[in-house]
């Protein structure tokens, strides 16, 4: 029994690890894939709050007691308007940015003016020409 258990654990971990490494070639978040310093890609974004009356207010301006750089402190997202290195790859970085938009939209209850957050992203994959994308958070419940 102990021998079989040992086999199962060792082969299980080995297969799982190989699976994670293979998954890293397609996933935005490459957990346990150990792809270190994968790209020299850079990015910057103009992130705005789009209000019910269609105003587009940069998140660099604090609102209702909130401040973007205090709400979003991780993964190099604190100051999106500056051009940054996407240190775990562009797909990973932009996945985090999309998630951050969603999180801020859902976790700023004192804000009754913002309909959604929007990021206009300029991304440079390695030395490729820049690519522009627009991400939006879901429309916020409190502004409906």
């Amino acid at each position: 029994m102990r021998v079989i258990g040992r086999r199962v654990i060792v082969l299980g971990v080995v297969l799982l690890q190989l699976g994670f490494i293979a998954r890293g070639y397609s996933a935005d978040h490459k957990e346990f894939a150990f792809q270190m310093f994968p790209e020299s890609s850079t990015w910057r974004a103009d992130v705005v709050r789009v209000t019910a009356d269609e105003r587009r207010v940069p998140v660099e301006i604090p609102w209702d007691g909130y401040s973007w750089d205090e709400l979003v402190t991780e993964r190099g997202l604190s100051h999106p308007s500056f051009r940054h290195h996407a240190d775990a790859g562009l797909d990973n970085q932009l996945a985090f940015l999309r998630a951050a938009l969603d999180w801020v939209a859902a976790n700023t209850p004192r804000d009754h003016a913002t309909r959604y957050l929007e990021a206009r992203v300029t991304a440079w994959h390695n030395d490729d020409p820049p690519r522009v994308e627009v991400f939006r958070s879901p429309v916020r419940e409190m502004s409906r």
Partner: protein
Amino acid sequence: MSAPAATAPLRGAGVLARLDELLGREVSLRALSLLRVLVGPIVLLHLAPFLSDSLHGRTYQDVFHEPYASWYPELPEGAYIGVLWLGAVAAVAMSAGALMRLAALTRVATVTTFAVVAYNVFLSTTHFHNNRAYLVIVLGILAVAPAAQAGPAWPLWLLRFECAAVYGASGLSKLLDPDWFGGTVTWQRVLHDRADLHPLPDWALSVLTDRDFHTGAAKVIVLTELFIALGLWSRRTRYAAVWVAAIFHLTIEASASVQVFSFLGIAVLLIWAVPSTRDRVLRIDPRAPLARVVGALDWLARFRVEPAAPGSTPEVVDRDGTTIRGRPAVAFALSRLPLTAWFALPTLLLPAVRRARAA
């Protein structure tokens, strides 16, 4: 049934028996004990930013985070902070327990440390970094390994596989990426960070920003990672791979922010020591400096020290019976101690030492 078809199951059973023998063989687990001692402070270093934030009344819950799964349990803020501190205490206990050979304490502390670190890392996608993933793996294997001086070899094999996988996966991903292997990625990184390179002399700046330099340098980096991943498995290349890996980590530490990766990467290299003890003999005057050095630093119990006559030259008998005397013996002994190995290993390439070992 044809002859090849009949022998196939036998071959399969033979492979399985060999695998079972390899995984179940009783080996020295001193390397894992020493690794526990070293990983304790690394865990403290890893937890430090979380603990520092908690002292200022902040946790991940107050800022952007992204849970992996909605069902993953999240603790109230006070309890979460308590768990982080428990992890820090457990990490200290793990190191202390391993140092003092208190098996029960070591086992409980290692499992607790692993549970806290893994729980915290999996709380949010934003907590995940490669160095933390490696730390979770190392702690997980240490948690299931016996906290004894000897035991079955399977945790050691598993950790060796994971160690090689880290370098192999990193090297392979760069090898398969034309931008990386062709030098574009490193060249672009240097160009973006050129402002930070101003302390370097002009000639160094000129080399580092030269596109052609990166065409070659990128291949050296990729092949270095792959050499470490593969070289660790063969006894002929293992010492070279460990030596190169140490330089590799120090270079990364000097040039990039990688949290605990360098410390962990270097510490885990210990597990590549042959898991047997006292199978080399060192005959030496007990008052000689080398005797004291070996007495203090032979943490993996490489040598059985036998007292020799006062003033006699040191003598090492290797596993294969080869006897080395004098300075080559000193160089050889130092090359087998964890703390001096990196400095002493290159001296084994000196002609005098090579001749002495071949004699």
